[in-house]
């Protein structure tokens, strides 16, 4: 890729925007998954303990 080409700023902006948006999507999805699974596990264990 020629970094001195015309309109290269638009190319860099496109890749940067795509990277940021996809990284935020991946991190929020993984974070939500981890948080909710831990919470479900905790409540499930608590409920089983309370019953026994």
């Amino acid at each position: 890729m020629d970094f001195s080409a015309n309109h290269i700023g638009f190319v860099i902006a496109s890749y940067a925007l795509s990277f940021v948006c996809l990284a935020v999507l991946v991190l929020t999805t993984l974070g939500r998954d981890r948080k909710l699974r831990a919470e479900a596990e905790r409540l499930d264990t608590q409920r089983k303990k309370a019953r026994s």
Partner: protein
Amino acid sequence: MQFLANPTRFLKIANAVLPYVWAITIALFAVGLYGALVTAPPDYQQGETVRIMYVHVPAAWMALFVYTVMALASAVAAIFRHPLADVAAKTAAPIGAVFCFLSLATGSLWGKPMWGAWWVWDARLTSMFVLMLLYIGYMAIWAAIEEPHRAAMVARVVALVGFINIPIVKFSVDWWNSLHQPASVFRMGGPTIAGPMLWPLLVMGLAYTFLFLALHLTAMRAEIAARKIRQIQIAEIGDR
């Protein structure tokens, strides 16, 4: 399809395949980006700006594909009462919305140097904008209606009615005089793009597809956990 209707069975399969899907996604992005940024030649007219195509086109493909997944899942939920179909549709929406936004934003970044305008009310661009509104509307329904069964019923209708926009987006460049170029990959008579430019585009398309698969399975797993939490909380209220 009924085989996957059991959430426990689904989770077992999802947990087993997810590490492989993430690994394939990373490998495909590495190869695709190498092709897009290093080996693919600049276009004889567009110059280096053509490289925007490698992030714009896969995002647009995925925006259409994900909405199709949502509509199919909504139809399955409505017809077969498949317990995970609504979960699949609901969790696909935010991912599709991000792809749709990226398609519009990177298209705009390509349009300014090539067309001289950030935005034109062209048939393809307008129908993609309508798709973005459909994604937002669909997510707003799930957020606004507290009772999950009612939210699912309304959301199914929006997903199915909104599906009419998908062929409009796809064929808008054929049906109307459009500034946007016609299909050059998935068309009768084969692709019109040269091989050195085509393979990075296809690999990036595959990378985006695997990224969607990885995110969708993860988001579905999270949604199943959220529903389990809700069930436990309701059961605890009942026990009191």
